[in-house]
């Protein structure tokens, strides 16, 4: 079963370090949880390794809902990765 490409969005210093605000990627079957995605992305090159050098600080949202890194991505249409929020 092959997966459809998913829209991956990056914000704040994750976006700056990778040099992209979004891209479409077909995720391998081995990427099940949000944490799997962070580890898989960090292997895509130096810029990604830099963006995800402290994986525990990365927050993940699936279809605009926060999820924990041990939670499954499911049939996400859009996944966002970003640092802890600093609004308000």
């Amino acid at each position, binding site marked *: 079963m092959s997966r459809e490409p998913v829209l991956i969005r990056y914000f704040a210093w994750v976006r700056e370090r990778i040099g992209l605000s979004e891209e479409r990627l077909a995720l391998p079957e081995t990427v099940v949880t949000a944490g799997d995605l962070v580890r898989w992305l960090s292997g895509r090159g130096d810029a990604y390794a830099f963006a995800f050098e402290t994986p525990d600080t990365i927050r993940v949202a699936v279809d605009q809902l926060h999820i924990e890194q041990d939670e499954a991505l499911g049939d996400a249409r859009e996944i966002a990765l970003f640092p802890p929020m600093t*609004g*308000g």
Partner: protein
Amino acid sequence: MAATEPRIIVRVGPDDFDVGAEIDALQAGDPAVGAVTSFVGYCRDEGGRLAALELEYYPGMAEAEIGRVVNEAVARWPLYAITVVHRGGRIKPGERIVLVAVSSSHRDAAFAACDYVMDFLKTRAPFWKKEHPADRSEGGWVEAKAHDDARAERWKGEKG
């Protein structure tokens, strides 16, 4: 308890807001309203060090996440209306960033709900601040504060 569904307004974008008009609109001639509380957050100059803040946000999710926090507050306290406005883009010291305003019959619910919404807006709404220093050096991203997490944490298990 408010008899009708609370009126909820959530706005995210570059535009400034009129604090007086927003607060007046919460009472809106409704004689049941006995209390309106509000919080206005401003950009500080950090002792002259800061020229501006760049507020980045996740369009769509920013409004949705604030909406989820507001719905929790509405379920927890008897409120008539809530307005949340959060600006994005470049904001200079002295300019407004955020408004949370709440109306209820009594001040206890209005104060608590306003406090609750601010605490979770800070820890859950997808906004990020980048500093533009006055000396034109390369600015850095503001780091999340443990203090903000601790403030949000104190609502757990506590009844409104």
